[in-house]
């Protein structure tokens, strides 16, 4: 499970760079709901990602 540390590191980096990302997403040139579209996209990607993994990740 060592990859968890890597993911935590990735999250930290994402957190550090989030202002730049945020600035890009909410750039005043776009429509006001652009962040929501981005958010929806992320939810969709996660959904597809989880959908494609076939084995159930149950502990019980």
């Amino acid at each position, binding site marked *: *499970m*060592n990859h*968890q*540390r890597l*993911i*935590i590191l990735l*999250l930290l980096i994402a*957190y550090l760079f*989030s*202002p730049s990302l*945020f*600035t890009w997403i*909410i750039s*005043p040139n776009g*429509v*006001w*709901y652009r*962040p*929501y579209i981005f*958010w*929806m996209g*992320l*939810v*969709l990607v*996660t*959904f597809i990602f*989880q959908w494609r*993994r076939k*084995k*159930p*990740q*149950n*502990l*019980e």
Partner: protein
Amino acid sequence: MTFDFSQVALIGISYLLLLFGIAYITERGWIPERITTHPVTYIFSLGIFASAWAFYGVVDLAFQFGYGALAYYLGTGALFLFAPVALAPLAELARRHQVHSLADLLVFRYHSNAVGALTTLCMLLGILPLMALQIQAIADTMHILVVSGSGNPSLTVADNGLTFKDVMALCYCAILALFTILFGSNRDQHRGLITAMAFESLLKVCAMFAVGMVSVFGVFHGIDGLNEWLADHPENLALLHTPIQDGSSHTLLLVFVATAVTMPHIFHLGLAENPLMRNSRTVTWAFPLFLLFMALPIFPILWAGSELAVPLDPQYFTLGVPILFNSPALTIFAFIGGLSAATGAMIIITLALATMVMNHWLLPSLRLAARNDLYRQLLWLRRILIAAIFFGGYLFYWVLNNRYSLTDLAFAAFIETLQFLPGTFAIVFWSPGNRRGMIAGLSVGTVIWFFGLLLPIITGMKVLHIPFSEFYIPVGNEYWNSITLFSLGLNTAIFIAVSLITEQSEEEHYSADLCAADELSHPVRQALDVHSAAEFKDRLAKPLGKVTASREVDHALKQLDLSNNERRPYALRRLRDQLEGNLSALMGIHVASEIMDSHLPYKVADVRETLDINLIENRLAQYQNHLTGMAAELNNLRLYHRKTLQELPMAVCSLGPDTEILMWNHAMAGLTHTPSEQVTGSYLEDIAEPWRTLLTDFSKSREMHYYRREIELEGHPHWISLHKATIEGPITEGVYDQVMMLEDVTETQLLEQELVHSERLASVGRLAAGVAHEIGNPITGIACLAQNLRYDSDNPEVLETAEQILSQTDRVTRIVQSLVGFSHTGHTAKSEFQAVILRDCAHEAISLLSLQKDKQQVQFINEIPKNAIVAGDTQRMIQVFINLLSNARDASPENGRVLLASNEDEYSIDITVTDEGSGIPPDIQDRILEPFFTTKEPGEGTGLGLAMVYSIVEDHGGLLDIVSPVDTQRNRGAQFIVKLPRHVDSLVDI
């Protein structure tokens, strides 16, 4: 549009009735299980994350921070997006160790009750503003609804004393507390509560969305209208971006990321109450989607509020917009949505805090009277605590007196719960963190927060004077950003520094290893000095009372699917762990582990550091779907090897150093007629005979092989060969497990015996054929002469002698015939056997022997009972007795005693012939059954007697055994044991 007080009160109470009605009917099973256990229900129940602040205050946050407000949703959403990595390890720990609150989890990880007590204190302090926020939202919205009757909703600011809306809020709180006590304090009613919370979330997201739709399509007449309006009012768009630049949104994100784990109500529903792992796939996308729906209407509501010029703070625009839009239905819907958000959060916060206070403050210091009903005491304690927490929250709200916005209060609460982040993070991801570091860091962070935010909120102070100096530090809500970064930074730094400087205790180190996500823990097998489930009840009766102890043990046994007379050490260890888990759910992890440690302690095992193979197996079996990559490959390899051993067509078992059975394969189960589940985890001493003696002897023996050990199974002899090897323990050198292989060689043994016997028979047969022919003629001559003698004489003595001679020659003839018969296999078919009364046979043999006056006289004692009846041939049985008794007589001293006795069981009769002679030397014991082997003087014996006995007994399906010496003290005596099958029909007759 008018609402009077009674209508508002009716709406509030109706809503509560509906909410708790749903909880009630769920508990009664009236709602189908597929709804209550559906992942969607679970996702919605997590929605209590969005409290009244998310319904009202977040619009104010959007007003102040523009897009920064989204951080509230994005932070938590991101954490759930990465749930399998970020939350699953915590949820798994909570599930495995029956942890029900963050404080429990921290106590488990840091192995210190001080951590639990401090966490509870900090949590209480931190949550007070959040409780006050919910109450303030309820009070304000009720007030707005009532005064909106005049067509102009407004909010009176800070009144002194107990105003009307304060009384309304107090009443609502009292009713809510009553409902929570009635429905929430019982630990068995979780499903109902979750369903009710899911309903609550559904209601609020619908309400929020409805207000958003009305804002866009009602107020702005569609998206285009909104865009036009924004183009006309560019300052609103600019407002979205400006605050982002100052970096505060960054801090906001940090604050809100932590809430998903550290907020007690979210932990309660997200990690402790709900089977997160069962839904971990769905939750990763579904919860962020839920949050998206909650977040989407925020900006339209804000703008609609501005457009309609709602005469309220932006924080109440969600209610203000429908009022000004003149839609009573939507107004009520929005009001209920807000009420619902506040209610749900308050109920779960109170339940979570009550559990924490009880487990970490009260139970460790209180001594509950164990003799009385423990559950009742705990229930009442919990009820009192729930009421006290509601009252405390209300008191705090009243003291604050509406001086602060919902956002201010939310910040105060969130920033304090953020202080748990370092300690919580270290649970799974940083095992060197220790309790001293945790306590020091949390204390410093909380003190900074207390003086920087909480105290200024209560007292209204603006600057903090540093004692003995001229420094004044500005404090209060305006500086939340700096206070957050400073308190959390210092908290983390101190936590790391102190943890690195100080040492972990041994127990803490063990717990840290258990919690570490990348550590494949190797559970060490510990020994319990309890030997039965009943003993558990006795031991626990002292701390828990007899009834409670019995109930808890029975419950745990049922959960584990074990029986009440369970004695296996492995099962008892599992029972102990299950009990500890159940008790910690009841009374907290600290009290539970204290009870278990003092009444059911793991004793220091004789053999330390032994891997608990059974537990590892069990755990791997549970985890196998969870393993990926190399671990999955290794597990497949393990399963393959395990299967190989299990299916091996040889009986194999392995033992720990303390003779606990670790493995028992299928062939072993078949051989011993004992299923693996019944013995795995038992001590060797606890298995059934005759295996217990055989295996225990072999395990203790220094010999690595036992050849052909005879055991008796269901009345039949079996021969087993045993082989063993030692396996060095995986973690400790010099400690050895054993692996044993058993081989059933009964068939080989029988074949060999048969072979030897055939050879004997062959030699006897060859002899007999010759002898019979040679003896036949002289015997016929003797018989003729004896008959002549009988006719020639009238002397009674002579006549008797002649009779005896005739009788003897008759016998000789028969014997010779039977000798010939031996040489032909299957001479006497068993079906021709008749009932033979052994006592009579023995009696006849004795009378015959007593005629031999020239031999030494011994006393034959016939104690064979009359009912000793076997299936056989009478003549041949008499022959057996004659041979055995004559041998016994020859071996006995003058006037010695020869005892005939018998034993019987269900299947057979054992006849023993015991003499008082010198016994048979061990070196010739194996040979005396061979034909022509004799120890007598030449001419005295032929060496055929015992061979014949053996042959006859074998023909009867019996066994011949020899014990010598019988009298071990004087080293004298020999005993022949003839085991013959019973005559079945006569058994029935008797």
